[in-house]
C-alpha cells in the first residue's frame, strides 16, 4: 500500500509543478504571463473546432460495432486458434478491444481482477497489455480529425502492428517473470 500511495502523491504533484514552473519561468523571462495565457486559451477554440464531428463519427461506428455483441462471436471463433499458440484465452478480449476502446478493455481488465485477482498471472498480464498500448483508432481519428486529414495511408496498419508487438512482448515478459 505504501508504495502505491507514494506513487499517487508523486503523480498528483507533477501537474501542479509543471504549471508553477512554466508560469514562473515565463515571468522571469519577462513574458506577460496573464495575457499570454489568454491568447493560448483563445487558440484552443480554433483547434478543437474539427474535433466534435470526428468524435461523433468514430464513437457512432465503434459503439454500434461493440454493442452488437459480435465481439463474443469473434472470441469464440478465435479461441481455438489462440490456444494453439499457448496464449491464455482470458486476455484475448483485452488484446482485441484495446486498440478500439480503452474503456471497454478496462472493463474486461476489471473482470479479470475480480475473477483471478490482480496479482495472478492473468491479472498481471492483463495489466501490462492494457498499459503498454494505446487506443489506436481513437488516437488516429482524434489527431487526424483535428487537422482535417482524410487520407490516412498506412498509419492504421502501422499503429495496429505496434499494438500487436506490444501484446506479444507483454506475454513473453510476464511469462518470464512468472517462470523465475
Amino acid at each position, binding site marked *: 500500500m505504501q508504495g502505491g500511495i507514494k506513487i499517487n502523491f508523486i503523480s498528483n504533484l507533477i501537474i501542479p509543478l509543471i504549471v508553477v514552473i512554466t508560469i514562473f519561468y*515565463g515571468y522571469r523571462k519577462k513574458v506577460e504571463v496573464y495575457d499570454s495565457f489568454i491568447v493560448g486559451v483563445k487558440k484552443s477554440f480554433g483547434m478543437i473546432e474539427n474535433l*466534435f464531428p470526428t468524435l461523433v463519427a468514430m*464513437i457512432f461506428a465503434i459503439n454500434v460495432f461493440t454493442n452488437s455483441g459480435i465481439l463474443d462471436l469473434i472470441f469464440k471463433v478465435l479461441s481455438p486458434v489462440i490456444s494453439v499458440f499457448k496464449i491464455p484465452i482470458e486476455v484475448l478480449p483485452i488484446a482485441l478491444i484495446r486498440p478500439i476502446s480503452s474503456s471497454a478493455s478496462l472493463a474486461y481488465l476489471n473482470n479479470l481482477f475480480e475473477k483471478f485477482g*490482480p496479482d495472478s498471472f492473468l491479472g498481471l498480464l492483463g495489466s501490462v497489455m492494457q498499459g503498454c498500448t494505446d487506443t489506436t483508432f481513437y488516437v488516429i481519428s482524434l489527431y487526424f480529425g483535428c487537422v482535417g486529414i482524410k487520407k490516412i495511408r498506412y498509419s492504421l496498419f502501422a499503429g495496429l502492428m505496434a499494438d500487436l*508487438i506490444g501484446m506479444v*512482448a507483454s506475454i513473453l515478459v510476464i511469462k518470464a517473470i512468472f517462470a523465475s
Partner: protein
Amino acid sequence: MVNIIWLSMILIGVIYGLFTGNIETINNTIIDSTKVSLDLFMKIFPVVAIWMGIMEIAEESKLLQKLSNSLSPLLTKLFPEIPKGHESLSYIASNVIANMFGLGSAATPFGLKAMDSLQKLNKKKDTASRSMITFLVLNTSGVTIVPTTIISLRLMYGSLEPTKIVGACIISTICSTIGGLIVDRLLARRYKN
C-alpha cells in the same frame, strides 16, 4: 480506407444485432452516440483549453524550445523531414514526455498542437505526411512509464504489489515502440512514390 472501415463497422454491427435479436440495443446505441461523443468532447475541451494557455507561456518564454533541444538528436533521426528547430519538434517532445509519465490529459493538447504544426509543413493537406504517421505510431505504441490508471485499479482490487507491473510495462512498451517505428520506416519507404 477510412470510408470502408467506418461503413463496415456500422454494417456488421447492425446486421449482427438484427440476427441475434439485439436490435433494441443497436437502436439505443445509435441515438445515444452523439451524447456520448459530446460527453467525451466536454471532457477533452476544458483540458485542452487550460493547457493551451500554459503552453503559450512556455512557448513565449522559449521553455518549449529548450525542452526539445535536449531531445533533438533523437527527434531529428525519427523525423528527418522536419527542419531543425521547427516548433513541431518541441510539441512532439512535450507530448512524448507527458505520455511517459502517464499524464494523458496533458499529452493530448501537446499532441494536437504537434499535429497542427506538422500540418503547416504538409504539402498535401488532406493526406497524412510521413512525419505525422511516425508521430502517431510513437503515440499509439503507448510510451508509458507510469500507467497511473492501471496502478490505481490494481490498488482498488487489493493488489499487494500494485506497481509490480511497471518494469514489465516499460519493457513491453519499448518493444512496441521500437517495433512500431521499424514497421513505420519500412512502410514509409514502400509508400514513397
